[in-house]
């Protein structure tokens, strides 16, 4: 089981790192409730 955990979901994201924004505002009350 631990081996499964270790090997899942380790693929690198496809978006180029330099394209990622520094600021990601999170939390939206209108979508929350």
């Amino acid at each position, binding site marked *: 089981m631990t*081996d499964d955990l270790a090997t899942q979901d380790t693929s690198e*994201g496809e*978006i180029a790192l330099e394209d*990622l924004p520094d600021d*990601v505002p*999170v939390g939206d009350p209108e*979508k*929350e409730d």
Partner: protein
Amino acid sequence: MVNAPNRPIFQPQNPAKSGCKLGWSSCTCFACAMVLDIAFFGAKVPTGCTIRTKTGDVSGGTTLPQVDAVATNSYGVNLETHTGSNVATYEYAARQLKAGRAFILQIGTHPLLSTTFRSTRGSINHAVACGEGRGWFRNTAGWMEPKEVLVYDPAADHRYAWVDQGPSWWPWLLVRQAAAALQPWGEDDSRTLGGNRMYAAFMPAPKVAYRYGGTLTAPVPDQVRAQSPIAGRSAIVRSRPTSLASDTVVGPIANGTLWWAYQKTHGVKPAGSASDVWYGDWTGTRWIHSSNLQSVGGDS
């Protein structure tokens, strides 16, 4: 009863419970408040709402750089923030967590919606505090990762039957999936961050205040569990290892509670014990005699 030393007070962001008008849009601030609670060892507990106010931002959600600035300028806590091209890897985050560095994590909630950890109605960008890990194991890549992480999700207030009540032990795999599901350009843009990337802000490594001749444990921290040697009794936390007087009692700690020891020293030897070794937290203000601890030296 004394709480585990590194655990903060849970702060719900729900305005009905926090009294914070901007509560729903302040998840990053509330997650930050709980990380600062850990960093201050509970001695100073800013509210998520106070942090929100100090950002000076009164509309919409907040970002990691915003709360980083508040933590630094208002509380003197220099968070190590990883966003954009400097995102943290899973390995880096796990290593920091194991070293006692709690962190704020920005996530996408989509992977949570079908689990008992669900806290939001829909799939949104969100933020949680990751406090500690357990079940550490060396993975096939050779680095240590936890089986589970104690997550303080400020939206997990059980306001509905389907909403979890935090804090909860999330599988580390789920933490990773949620981190990967963050939508960096907002929920109206379908692009997700992807694997092995985390928008995270880590608290500084705990600074050990050596007292009573304390020396650093090995490993650091030494994860141990409280266990009274007397059946039916709780282990006792004391303010110093040099006396068994009643005024040194901080309080009982439930058997089985995880305790992070950063220093040990020789102190008073309780009657009936062959040992004078005591284990202290990183502040040097809470000590447990070795006879009240189990699993010394092991990963927990």
